[in-house]
């Protein structure tokens, strides 16, 4: 049983299941509980380029997944993370964490409003860290969003360059400037020829 197993090792992951919304993303789905995070990361005091990130999660048949939950974690426009391990210390309210379920958008996209992050470390390209959860996924998966308009920085990023060249495109969001705010599109393919790169973080 569980007690006395404290030193027995990591507690195993289990799927988030189909019914996470009222617990983890209640406000987005209209349930009467406050949310700890939302799909809108912007804060009034944050400077920098506003961006929108949108994409779909596709299963092995190419069907759009309508019950996934995506979390993103990013640095502020100056490349600082709002966390004690980043000793530079952010001086703004920007937390850099967002959460969005794919069940409320008409096209079952995840849509985040945020600001473009700066590069957090020497040699690293700006990127957004992504965690994927859904029914049918027993352990969450990690990926990263890089930006198509950062080609020079991407070419030097050690993590991106550690990915086989033919799969790097799965990590690069395409920029669409047709609207007021630039939109980065990033579909997550769970399987198939375009299977997104997931990292063993």
């Amino acid at each position, binding site marked *: *049983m*569980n*007690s006395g*197993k*404290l030193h027995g*090792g*990591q*507690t*195993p*992951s*289990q*799927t*988030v299941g*189909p*019914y*996470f919304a*009222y*617990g983890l993303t209640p406000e987005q*789905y209209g*349930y009467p*509980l*406050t949310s*700890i*995070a939302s799909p809108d990361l912007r804060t009034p005091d944050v400077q920098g380029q506003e961006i929108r990130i949108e994409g779909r999660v596709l*299963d*092995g048949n190419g*069907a759009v*997944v309508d019950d996934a939950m995506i979390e993103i*974690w990013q*640095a502020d426009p100056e490349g600082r*993370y*709002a*966390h*004690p*391990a*980043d000793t530079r210390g952010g001086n703004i309210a920007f937390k850099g*964490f967002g959460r969005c379920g794919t069940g409320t958008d008409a096209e079952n996209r995840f849509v985040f409003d945020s600001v473009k992050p700066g590069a957090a470390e020497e040699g*690293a390209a700006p*990127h957004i*860290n992504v*965690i994927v959860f*859904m*029914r*049918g*996924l*027993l*352990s*969450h998966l990690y990926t*990263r969003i890089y930006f198509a308009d950062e080609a020079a920085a991407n070419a030097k990023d050690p*993590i991106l360059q*550690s990915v086989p060249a033919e799969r790097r495109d799965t990590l690069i969001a395409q920029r669409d400037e047709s609207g007021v705010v630039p939109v980065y599109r990033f579909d997550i393919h*769970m*399987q198939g020829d375009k*299977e*997104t*790169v*997931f*990292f*063993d*973080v």
Partner: protein
Amino acid sequence: MTDSRKPYSPRDWSAHPAIIAPDYKSTRLRGATKPLIPLKQTLSELTGPVFGQDSLGDLDNDLTKNGRKDGEPLGERIIVSGKVVDELGRPQPNMLVEVWQANAAGRYVHKVDQHDAPLDPNFFGGGRCVTDENGVYRFYSIKPGAYPWGNHPNAWRPNHIHFSLFGPSLCTRLVTQMYFPGDPLLDLDPIFLATPEKARARLVSDFDLSLTEEEFALGYRFDIVLRGPQETPMETPMETA
């Protein structure tokens, strides 16, 4: 002094379920098929969202109260508590624990749950709490019921409560499910059974009389181990006074 930028130990894939577990049918089209690419942890992974006491509402840790409309929820009142530690056994204080579950009849508030069991107007089923200085969390709830699902003929999920924790970094993120001791459905559940056998018991809570409140609610203990630092910290040299 703690070096908060030390790398974390890897995910222990001998304890976590396989990405594709064919008996749990939804994994077949949704699990990644290519090997995960190793990643040397950077500041992006050594940091993570920080949620503490300030992220809690008044009744968030009492699911017997936070959904009340005109009376008490039906079912067996329970207290669930446990210690959150890292792999070195160090308590993880001030950590957010999010929970959600079905009601006593096995029905979720979620709009897509079509199971023909009654909703309880006085039970919502979602809440959260934060670990104290000793890494201990605690919340009140109602024992969730079992419910049928479409994985295979006559499939039933065992009684369970969903848990979501961040821990101190992106590496320590964990979403899991707590089960109840002695549940006959555990041996039939493809989600529980997708967990490697040696680690399954870590998902099963213990009935605990010391947590039980007399004439009020039954206590269940569920301790949680998050990933810890990769290296064992240097031991303090013995004083030679």
